[in-house]
């Protein structure tokens, strides 16, 4: 790591005025940094990296490689410093814009007076797909459209802050600012010495305040959720952090359901009504019935709640329209129309390409312009045409000529440069500032800045994580202290787990457990004689192969059907461990487990993710290469099996140790136990009491098979501790079904499920329906009442043995029936758990539902 010291170029005055307080502070920081020994700077940078990784997340969008991020120069120590006075001007200018846009949206979605007056060309509004006709005249939305908005600003060459872009629909990124400040304070506290900087830590609480103001609930607080797209979103971590700090659930469309024009959140404790949604999705994605039918992220019927006034959405439905860049061309007229004022902050001139003269001017001098789509956002919709090859330009121009009103152009700006100080050195860079407005008149000092190359177009997206800068707004005295209403007096509220998250955890538990059982069984079975070969041993071991098949989703005699059996003996280990096409393979299970985990990353600690991810990647690596000798070897000598089992133990350990033992934890446990009890009974049945096509195929069980059965289910140690003798069928059955202390016994698992169910919810009696807990108690009773003596009747021929030893080594034909019965009882859990905690079908019932007034 090399750090160059500032040369004389860095000490040049900033063009915003060298005498301003901000310039002085900026210089002071540069001096402090410049005076630090290189080793100290190195330490600072590596600590910053560490902290960032510790978060388990990176700042900024995630879809870039580590290397790409590093090449951005790493952590930037220089904040963007803004004077109090300058900030006050920005505040006033942005507040004016929010007020005006709010009036504009109200007008557009009601009388459209501004269009009738001809102040704004109606074509811009009517042609924009973000003008949602379904949002017109919504009674629920009366006064306030804009609760949380953001504006991107750049300083022109004279030092004037210009608004280059507005985010009136969804405003993202504030939490990157919080994280950046946090890390900077930790790694370089000295930089803050003696400075009065406006605090930013109460951002989330203030957002909450604005939402509460939007929905006034008499004698209470409005229930809010943050609705986001999910982990596939670039800003997902920003959303998750904001939700956490606000103390609300981050939810996806499928977490919510509409009933009688009221919105409900599905949690494991039932459905909870929701009063306000802070949306992180554009309006068009919010309701597939009214807007884009292809949207997978919305809530069908959400609009009907807004229409009924039972739900408020922030920002108001349809407000995305105000992002239109062609509309921005008419901002001065819009400001004048609604407020009689002039814009307090300027914006770069917008060249509307629907005007033929403008179009020609831009085409003739294209080097000087950036062309942008009028309503589509993101780097894919901004074109610096300067370096575009002629043929590409011609094609692009045709595209514009076909729909010129969809495009605007801006002159490439000359910006003020700001100093940066990263591990690769220090340099001057152009900087974009994103400021957030809360409600109609408050601009948050929690602002975000990022740097880019001088020619950067990066106005609409934070493009490189490492380029994020902290923003320091200097306090001008006297500043009234900030009053936070929302959460000051409240104890942290524990949120109930949403059903979707619970479901993911449940399945994570099940998949992880299935991966383990499959590996364990395979480890034993693959060493046994191939059941298709014609030998006495092979025939004797058939039940074990059947167990392998039955526990991995095949028919039990999968290996025994000549001609229909798709795999050869040598392919067995690959098929069960590494075959992606086989849904029951260990790799498939791990992949599903990881997929579920990825969707709910914020619900468990990074330690857990790292173990799971590592395990999956390692196994996947074996699967995805062409089988080499090494792969064949680890499959044959079973070292991969051992490795997987060890790492799964590590996963369980990490969960046990690092997770809060909360609802989430209990749902994981529920999944593990549900799967394990099922696997134990299925295995036991195939070895002791097999049925083929419903016909019982019981025969005496050899002690070798019993021995192997115990090994398959990790029960050797348990058995030996209890009996100190060679295995006997009845005792093995008792151990696997009824032992209260053996962790793989059905009874132990059911007791575990009971504990988990009791801990999360306790009994929630619902008239006329079985509950999971009741069901659990019933299965436990069934298990306890099994008397092995009736299923393994005493064999008269061996009168000399004592106790269980006189029991038959062959169960009666009632035994397989009993096990089938138990299996069915266990499978019933799936529906019960889903009906009670996930889909809530026990709440939604046809007859009662509409006979009463709506639940609220």
């Amino acid at each position, binding site marked *: 790591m090399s750090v160059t010291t500032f040369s004389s170029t860095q000490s040049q005055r900033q063009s915003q005025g060298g005498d301003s307080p901000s310039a002085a502070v900026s210089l002071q920081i540069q001096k402090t940094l410049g005076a630090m020994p290189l080793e100290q700077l190195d330490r600072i940078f590596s600590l910053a990296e560490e902290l960032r990784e510790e978060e388990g997340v990176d700042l900024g969008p995630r879809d870039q490689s580590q290397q790409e991020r590093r090449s951005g120069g790493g952590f930037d120590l220089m904040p963007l410093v803004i004077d109090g006075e300058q900030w006050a001007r920005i505040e006033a200018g942005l507040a004016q814009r929010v007020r005006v846009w709010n009036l504009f949206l109200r007008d557009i979605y009601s009388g459209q007076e501004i269009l009738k007056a001809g102040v704004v060309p109606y074509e811009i509004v*009517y042609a924009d797909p973000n003008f949602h006709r379904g949002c017109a005249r919504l009674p629920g939305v009366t006064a306030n459209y804009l609760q949380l908005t953001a504006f991107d600003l750049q300083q022109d060459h004279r030092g004037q802050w210009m608004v280059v872009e507005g985010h009136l629909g969804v405003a993202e990124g504030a939490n990157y600012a919080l994280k950046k400040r946090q890390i900077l304070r930790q790694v370089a506290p000295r930089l803050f010495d003696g400075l009065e900087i406006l605090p930013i830590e109460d951002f989330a609480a203030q957002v909450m305040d604005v939402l509460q103001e939007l929905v006034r609930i008499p004698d209470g607080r409005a229930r809010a959720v943050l609705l986001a797209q999910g982990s596939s979103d670039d800003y997902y971590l920003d959303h998750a952090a904001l939700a956490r700090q606000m103390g609300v659930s981050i939810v996806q469309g499928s977490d919510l359901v509409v009933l009688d*024009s009221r919105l409900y959140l599905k949690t494991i404790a039932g459905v909870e009504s929701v009063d306000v949604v802070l949306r992180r999705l554009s309006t068009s994605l919010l309701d597939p*019935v009214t807007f884009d039918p292809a949207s997978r992220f919305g809530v*069908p019927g959400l609009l009907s709640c807004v229409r009924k006034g039972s739900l408020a959405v922030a920002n108001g439905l349809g407000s995305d329209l105000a992002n239109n860049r062609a509309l921005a061309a008419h901002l001065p007229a819009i400001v004048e129309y609604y407020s009689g004022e002039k814009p307090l902050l300027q914006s770069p001139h917008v060249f509307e390409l629907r005007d033929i003269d403008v179009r020609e001017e831009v085409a003739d001098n294209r080097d000087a312009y950036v062309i942008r789509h009028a309503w589509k956002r993101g780097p894919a919709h901004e074109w610096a045409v300067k370096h575009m090859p002629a043929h590409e330009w011609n094609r692009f121009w045709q595209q514009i000529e076909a729909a010129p009103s969809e495009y605007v152009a801006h002159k490439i700006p000359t910006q003020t440069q700001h100093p940066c100080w990263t591990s690769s050195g220090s340099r001057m860079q152009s900087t974009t500032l994103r400021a957030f407005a809360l409600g109609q008149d408050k601009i948050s000092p929690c602002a975000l800045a990022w740097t880019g190359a001088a020619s950067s177009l990066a106005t609409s997206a934070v493009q490189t994580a490492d380029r994020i800068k902290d923003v320091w707004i200097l306090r001008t005295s006297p500043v009234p202290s900030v009053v936070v209403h929302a959460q000051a007096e409240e104890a942290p509220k524990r949120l109930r787990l949403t059903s979707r998250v619970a479901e993911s955890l449940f399945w994570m538990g099940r998949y992880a457990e299935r991966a383990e059982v499959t590996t364990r069984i395979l480890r034993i079975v693959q060493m046994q004689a191939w059941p298709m070969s014609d030998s006495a041993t092979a025939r004797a071991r058939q039940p074990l192969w059947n167990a392998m098949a039955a526990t991995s989703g095949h028919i039990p005699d999968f290996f025994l059907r000549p001609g229909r059996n798709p795999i050869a003996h040598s392919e067995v280990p690959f098929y069960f461990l590494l075959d992606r096409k086989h849904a029951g393979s260990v790799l498939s299970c791990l992949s599903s487990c990881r997929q579920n985990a990825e969707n709910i990353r914020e619900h468990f600690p990074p330690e857990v993710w790292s173990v799971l991810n590592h395990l999956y990647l390692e196994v996947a690596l074996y699967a995805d290469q062409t089988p080499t000798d090494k792969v064949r070897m680890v499959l044959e000598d079973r070292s991969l099996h051992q490795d997987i089992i060890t790492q799964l133990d590590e996963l369980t350990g990490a969960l046990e140790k690092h997770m809060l033992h909360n609802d989430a934890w209990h749902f994981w446990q529920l999944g593990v136990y549900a799967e394990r009890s099922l696997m134990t009974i299925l295995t036991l049945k195939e070895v002791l009491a097999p049925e083929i096509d419903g016909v019982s195929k019981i025969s005496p069980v050899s002690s070798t098979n019993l021995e192997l059965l115990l090994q398959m289910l990790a029960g050797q140690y348990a058995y030996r501790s209890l009996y100190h003798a060679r295995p006997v069928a009845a005792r093995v059955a008792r151990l696997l079904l009824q032992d209260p202390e053996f962790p793989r016994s059905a009874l132990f698992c059911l007791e575990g499920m009971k504990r988990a169910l009791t801990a999360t919810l306790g009994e929630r009696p619902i008239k006329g329906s079985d509950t999971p807990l009741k069901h659990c108690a019933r299965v436990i009773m069934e298990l306890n009442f099994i008397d092995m003596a009736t299923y393994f009747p005493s064999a008269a021929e061996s009168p000399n043995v004592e106790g269980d030893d006189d029991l038959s080594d062959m169960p009666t034909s009632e035994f397989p029936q009993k096990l089938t019965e138990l299996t069915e009882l266990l499978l019933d859990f799936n529906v019960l758990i889903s009906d009670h905690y996930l*889909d809530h*079908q026990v709440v*939604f019932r*046809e*007859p009662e539902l509409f006979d009463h007034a709506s639940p609220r």
Partner: protein
Amino acid sequence: MTFNIVHTTAYEYSAPAIESFTELRVRPRQSNRQTVHHHVTEVTPRAALEEFADYYDNVVECLSVPYRHKCLTVTSRSTVETLPHKDALSGLDLTVSEAVRLYWPQRRELFDFLMPSIHAPITPEIEAMSKQQLPSSGSFCDMVKGLSSYIYETFTYMPGVTDIRTPLSDVLRKRQGVCQDFAHLMIALLRAAGLPARYVSGYIETDSVRGGSGLVGATASHAWVEVYMPSGVWVGIDPTNDMLEGERHVQIGIGRDYHDVPPLRGVFKGAKRQQLSVMVTVSRTTGEMVTD
């Protein structure tokens, strides 16, 4: 004429569905051409209906069925009296380009019906066809009527060949389709010429009372076109039957195209497949006869 209309839509799911939410646009609209004497919408399984007027003042009813259900049946029953229409197209002596000019003062209000829309895109193919069929020097009335006849003669009514996802370009190639395809085509051609056109969803009486001229369209709901007259009224034209909208047409709603007025649009979870069946009957209640 007075009609009793029964419109039944049934969804049968391959597996139980949950959390379904549905918007219905099946209530005939009140207008000076038709009076709705009675309307009721019945839904099985039971669900409360919420009612509102959309951007184009169509009546929408929506319902949610959150619990498990195997099928969803919606039956809309209406009694509607239609009034004789005057032939608003005749006696207007101006050219297409004169008409286009006359729209200018109202261009803002008409803009939605001048712009291309999802199902009625204005492609180069459509533009070329429009120039041919609607030359700007041609007589407005003759050209509009002629366009309806052109579609009627050139395209074959053939159910099952297209569905709502079939793009207009496919319809043009196949020369086959159903009422909504012909409506969308006509709308696109009219708009390409600068004439405001909108989509009408509704019903048509297919069999005349005593044999005779059976009209096409009523196995399901019908669709046709309205074109805006420079005189300030919307006039309905049915290219599927090559006729002006008459007493035997009953309007449900209007929009830019099908997307704005689907009889039923819904979302559900659970089942992978669904079987849709639609049945419409339009029967006359009094013995009024078409005299000519």
